[in-house]
C-alpha cells in the first residue's frame, strides 16, 4: 500500500458517492428523498475536485450546490408537494430512455478510454521555486507581474486574477445573468 493506493482509494470512494447518489436520485420514489440523494452526489463531486487539486472549486461546490441549490430544491418541494411520495414517479419513457442511453454511455466510455488525450507526462505541475519572467508577464498583462513567485494552480488569488483579466468578459456576463435571474425569480414567484 503506497500513497498512490491511498489516493486511488479516495477517488474510488468519491466516485462511488457521486454515482451512487446519482442513481439514488433517479431511483427514489419520493422527490424529497431523491433530493437528499442529489446532495450526496454533490458531495462526491466535491471530493473528486479535491483529488484533482482544485480545492477552491470543491469548497464552492459545497457552498453553492449543497448549501444553496439543493436547499432551494428542498424548499420548493416542501412548498408544493404533499409529503407522501408518488407511486408512479416516472412517465412512459423509461424503456425508450434506456434504449437510447445504453449506447450513449457505451460510446462515451469508449471515447474517453481510447481517445489519445494529450496528457502531459504527469500533469504534475511544478509547485514552487519558480518565478515569472518578463515575457510571460507581458503576455498576461495584469495577471502576473515579473518576479512573481510561481502561483500554484490551487491558488485562489491566481484564479481571481485570471477571472479579472483573461476571463473578464465571462465574469461580467455571469454577473449580469445572476442579477437577471435574481430579479426574474422574484417577479415569477410573486404571482
Amino acid at each position, binding site marked *: 500500500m503506497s500513497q498512490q493506493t491511498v489516493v486511488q482509494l479516495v477517488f474510488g470512494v468519491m*466516485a462511488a458517492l*457521486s*454515482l451512487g447518489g*446519482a*442513481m439514488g*436520485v*433517479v431511483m427514489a420514489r419520493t*422527490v424529497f428523498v*431523491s*433530493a437528499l440523494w442529489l446532495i450526496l*452526489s454533490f458531495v462526491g*463531486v466535491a471530493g*473528486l*475536485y479535491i483529488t484533482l487539486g*482544485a480545492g*477552491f*472549486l470543491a469548497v*464552492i461546490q459545497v457552498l*453553492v*450546490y449543497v448549501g*444553496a*441549490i439543493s436547499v*432551494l*430544491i428542498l424548499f*420548493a418541494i416542501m412548498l*408544493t*408537494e404533499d409529503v407522501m411520495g*408518488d407511486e*408512479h*414517479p*416516472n*412517465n412512459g*419513457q423509461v424503456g*425508450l*430512455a434506456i434504449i*437510447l*442511453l445504453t449506447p*450513449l*454511455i457505451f460510446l462515451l466510455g469508449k471515447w*474517453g*478510454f481510447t481517445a489519445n*488525450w494529450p*496528457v*502531459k507526462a504527469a*500533469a*504534475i505541475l511544478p509547485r514552487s521555486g519558480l518565478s515569472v*519572467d518578463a515575457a*510571460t508577464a507581458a503576455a498576461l498583462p495584469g495577471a502576473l507581474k515579473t518576479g512573481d513567485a510561481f502561483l500554484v494552480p490551487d491558488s485562489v488569488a*491566481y*484564479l481571481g486574477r*485570471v*477571472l479579472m483579466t*483573461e476571463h473578464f468578459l*465571462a465574469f461580467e456576463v*455571469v454577473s449580469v*445573468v445572476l442579477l437577471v*435571474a435574481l430579479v*426574474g425569480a*422574484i417577479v*415569477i414567484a410573486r404571482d
Partner: protein
Amino acid sequence: MAMIPLWWYLMVAAGLFTIGLYGALVRKNAVSVLMGIELMLNAVNVNAVAFWRYVSPTAKAAAGADRPVGDFVVGMDGQVFAVVVIALAAAEAAVGLAMVIALYRSRRSFNLPQMDQLQG
C-alpha cells in the same frame, strides 16, 4: 506520474451525465427533471476540471503561437469554466424553481404531463 488515470474521471463523468439525462427524460415531476439537469451540469464540470488538471498545462506550454507562455504558468480555463457553470446552475435553479412554484400556484401540481395547455 499521475496517480489516477484521466479516463477514470471521464468514466465517472460519463456515468453522471447518463444518469442525469435518464432522470431528466423519465421523470414526471418538474423538480426531478431539474435535478437530472443539475447532475448533467456536474458531469460537465468534472470533465472540465479533469481536463484542466491533465491536459491544459501541456496545451498552454505547447501553444506559444500568440503568447510565449513558459512551462510553468498554468492556464486556469478549466476552473474558470467550472466556476461559470456553477454560477449559471445557481441562476437556473433559482428561475426554474420560481417557475415551479408559480405553476404550482395556478395548477396545484407540478407534474409535467399535465402542463400541456399549449398543445394543439
